[in-house]
């Protein structure tokens, strides 16, 4: 993986975060040793009730995922996911590769619809309306959600046209309005000062980190209700990663953000809530501070400290 640099686990940081005085002395538990009852149940194919902290229920929700399941053909990728997403907060999805966090993220804006043989059950309600309801227009739905992908994917056009793409496809032609929106989005994405003199230049000429900030500007230009970030730093170097993280914290004050990340320090730094997923199931979900410092499950504790997973 080209982006492995940013995903390197740095135990030192974790320890300052949680318990500096506890060195790793416990032997690494083996599977089915009885230490991880929830994980063991999941490995047996069950869908145990996850540890959902009360704190996640007490806030205003913008997204409500209820008993959501998803199949790729005959393979079931998501099992009975039930989790409310807090409005105006940053929620991080963490878990080992293949645990379904990206799948869950892509279910919110129904990007999984593009894949052959995908079926779903359960509901994902955005502002109280199920996005999988029959009468939902997917195009309209996606206009209400912004998304940023793993690899920066600027379109082969100018920086300006990239940013205002969402407005262009909505039929907006007024030059002054487009310019205003472009500047606002670029400022929010902390990119304006670097590109203001070359808005007409190709977006392909930007560095990877700049491209990713451009993609964030493009995603927020139409002021989406929820911003979906799918491992937005996994293809970036550490410095670019840091800038994006600062940006996510900044943007999180204005927007609801749902972010998938491989990097637990990143989740700890940028999010208000964290959900730990494993093999398509939700395991534990609560305030980020609680998940990292006072997790209620040993599974979660060992995962966030890098001893398991």
């Amino acid at each position: 993986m080209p982006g492995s640099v940013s995903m390197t686990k740095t135990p030192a940081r974790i320890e300052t975060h949680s318990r500096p005085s506890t060195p790793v002395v416990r032997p690494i538990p083996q599977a089915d040793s009885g230490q991880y009852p929830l994980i063991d149940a999941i490995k047996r194919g069950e869908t145990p009730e996850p540890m959902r902290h009360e704190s996640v229920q007490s806030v205003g929700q913008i997204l409500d995922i209820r008993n959501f399941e998803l199949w790729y053909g005959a393979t079931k990728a998501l099992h009975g996911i039930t989790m409310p997403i807090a409005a105006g907060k940053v929620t991080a999805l963490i878990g080992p590769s293949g645990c379904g966090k990206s799948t869950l993220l892509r279910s919110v804006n129904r990007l999984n619809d593009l894949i052959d043989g995908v079926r779903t059950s359960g509901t994902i309600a955005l502002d109280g309306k199920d996005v999988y309801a029959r009468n939902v227009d997917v195009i309209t739905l996606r206009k209400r959600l912004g998304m940023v992908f793993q690899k920066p994917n600027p379109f082969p056009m100018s920086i300006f046209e990239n940013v205002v793409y969402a407005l262009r496809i909505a039929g907006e032609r007024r030059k002054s309005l487009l310019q205003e929106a472009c500047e606002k989005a670029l400022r929010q994405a902390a990119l304006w000062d670097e590109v203001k003199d070359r808005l007409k230049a190709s977006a392909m000429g930007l560095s990877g980190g700049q491209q990713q900030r451009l993609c964030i500007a493009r995603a927020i230009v139409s002021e989406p209700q929820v911003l979906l970030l799918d491992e937005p730093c996994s293809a970036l170097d550490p410095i670019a990663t840091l800038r994006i993280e600062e940006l996510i914290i900044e943007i999180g004050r204005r927007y609801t953000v749902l972010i998938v990340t491989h990097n637990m320090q990143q989740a700890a730094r940028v999010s208000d809530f964290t959900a730990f997923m494993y093999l398509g199931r939700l395991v534990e979900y609560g305030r980020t501070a609680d998940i990292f410092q006072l997790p209620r499950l040993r599974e979660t504790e060992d995962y966030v400290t890098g001893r398991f997973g």
Partner: protein
Amino acid sequence: MSLSFKESRRRTASAFMYALCAASTLAIVTVLLMVAGYLAWIGASSLSWNLLTTVPTGDVANPGGMRHAIDGTIVLVLLAAMLGVPLGVLAGIYLSEYPEEARLTGPLRFIADVLTGVPSIVVGILGYELLVVPVSRLTENSISFSGFAGAGALAFIMIPIVARTTEEMLRLVPRSYREGSLALGATRSQTIFRVVLPGAFGGITTGIVLAMGRIAGETAPLLFTALGSRLLTHDPRQPFPSLTLQIYTYATGPYPEQRRLAWAGMLVLLALLFVLNLAVRIVAARQARGRLH
């Protein structure tokens, strides 16, 4: 001992393979250069300003120039492209961008591949039956050979080539472009025309220009459709001249002056194709530079 023996055997084998590949390449390049050189040698002696500016005189001893044929080829290729490019590109988009219709696109792709290999004389006959005979009946004209019929036959050759190149080039456009656009609430056609197609622009242009080069060199499809003409005309409703047809006529005729002219014509045709290919290279290089950024 045995190790160094193996080592030296490996080196010999490697050197042998290298020599074989180099010799094959050299043989091909030599033949190509001989053809081009011979053509230039014979053709250049008849190359003149008159060749490019005057039309046939009818006098076999002093046959005039080929202005009419040069213009004819350019007009025919442009007409064929006007029909073939939009149809070919749209068909390529259909093949690449609508995978859920695989039951239809699979056979279509096969047909396109077969059409690319159809002998050009077959296309000529087909053009005669479909574009010349019916028009003759309709207009009650005894001969309805026309530039339009010729361009139609050339377009028939061009369409499958353009469709398949377009498809291949669109497939090279990363999936992340499409997902990025769709995630912003773009419709599928907005995604195709605003993001995917511009992303493949260089490759598709290259394919189109190569296809134009291919049809510029065709003779057989024009034999029964455009027919050829000795007059300078830009009216595609009339029988229409082309370089290839004029070369064919002169080269198979009995008059030495006309044969000399045929050689010169070939040189002009090659020069046209060379310019076209050079244009492709420039476009492709620009595209490559664009990717680097």
